[in-house]
């Protein structure tokens, strides 16, 4: 039974990818023994499982994901957080304060107010309930400095690269610390604004060209060139 399309081929919804005993992976569906694409994307497969890597999609929460969100509302005993997804997330006050929440004593807007950004982890989510977040772990909590950029959530794996090759290269070349929210929001904190802007440019380039080959090399080259230019300017 054949796979009808080659690897890395661009498909649109409804395109027939394979016929026969294959497993429909991400962004695909099977009907009457045939596998079709469900999103615009690029075909990838390993032996039996066929995936389509979507070129554009939105973030669907999963338990354990690290996300970056914006507080949109202060409630009675917690906050509602926009995590760039179809669903609004909840963050409980007792979780942030790491002790029982006392409405008489604690003033929630002083801890986190609307517009504040947080790095958080999804602790629970399913079809019937909105996602719940936690910040009670090292590395999580309110963001105080840095730059925020948004990229398509499906492209986060490309930014990470194979075994983190892309992201560690960018971190090294720019000297910035980068936190990738799986919801497509990225926090960049560097020593200078220039460093941060350089990292931002690299990330946006990855987003635009994620479906092309030889990207890591091109990004490395771009970063090196930019750095060389800066050195010259200093002299």
């Amino acid at each position, binding site marked *: 039974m054949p796979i009808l399309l080659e690897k890395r081929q661009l498909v649109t919804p*409804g395109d027939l990818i394979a016929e026969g005993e294959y497993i429909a992976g991400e962004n695909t569906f099977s*009907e009457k023994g045939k596998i079709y694409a469900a999103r615009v994307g690029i075909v990838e497969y390993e032996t039996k499982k066929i995936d389509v890597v979507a*070129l554009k999609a939105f973030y669907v929460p999963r338990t354990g994901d690290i996300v970056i969100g914006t507080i949109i509302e202060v409630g009675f005993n917690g906050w509602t957080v926009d995590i760039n997804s179809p669903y609004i997330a909840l963050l409980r006050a007792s979780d942030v304060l790491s002790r029982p929440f006392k409405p008489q004593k604690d003033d929630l807007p002083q801890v986190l107010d609307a517009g504040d950004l947080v790095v958080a982890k999804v602790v629970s989510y399913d079809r019937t309930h909105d996602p719940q977040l936690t910040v009670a772990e090292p590395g999580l909590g309110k963001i105080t400095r840095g730059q925020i950029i948004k990229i398509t959530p499906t492209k986060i794996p490309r930014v990470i690269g194979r075994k983190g090759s892309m992201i560690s290269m960018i971190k090294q070349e720019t000297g910035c610390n980068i936190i990738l929210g799986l919801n497509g929001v990225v926090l960049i904190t560097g020593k200078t604004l220039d460093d941060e802007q350089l990292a931002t440019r690299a990330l946006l380039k990855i987003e635009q060209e994620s479906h092309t080959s030889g990207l890591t090399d091109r990004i490395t080259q771009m970063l090196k060139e930019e750095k060389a230019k800066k050195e010259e300017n200093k002299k």
Partner: protein
Amino acid sequence: MNDKPEKLIDKKGLRLDGRKPEDLRPVKLEVGVIPNADGSAYVEHGKNKILAAVYGPREVHPKHLSLQDRTVLKCRYHMAPFSVQERKSPAPSRREVELSKMIKESLEPAVFLEYYPRTMVDVFVEVLQADGGTRCASITAAALALADSGIPMRDLVVACAAGKVDDTIVLDLMDTEDKLGAADVPVALMPNLNAITLLQMDGILTHEEFESAVNMAMEGCRKIYAIQKEALKTKYVSISEENKEEAEE
């Protein structure tokens, strides 16, 4: 403009705009024209000019409209006041409300609504210039915008009309033909699954005429589908080609 042409099809068998009965009007499709929307498309189908924009999935407002097991798909078809000869009132007319519902129902079978319960997807269709067959062009554009927004779909949806003009079955009626002709049969099709999601008829046709009109419309749909697919791919292919050129330099 007010003169009624005596014949809609001349002696040579050509129509008012010089097309043969089985010809489509020129179709141009473009994807991603509205940066603020999650997905968008623009279609030029003959003299029709239509914009479609998709927002979502997002939280449902007002909340009581949300469904526990599926996404709510909302459609709004609207004609701009300047889209037709005589100024059209911008308030939604009976016809527009009906077409909104019709577009929604012809798109619903193609979208995996059950994937994201308690959310809503908004589809806005704005007709900038109308010249017959806007419902079909709207469906084509709206389906393209949905695919562009990254909502999982079973298939794209394409629509095209066929009808009867001066006792001849013709494809893709324009405004005059629609108004003076005998019948109009719009068809929306999911080409890969070979399923019809919309079938209407306005006018009188015999069984045989109806059948040949539907077949002709489906044939037209497949032609537009090729353009639709191309438009969707072009958005991404152009980026990779730019890189190739860069690499060669």
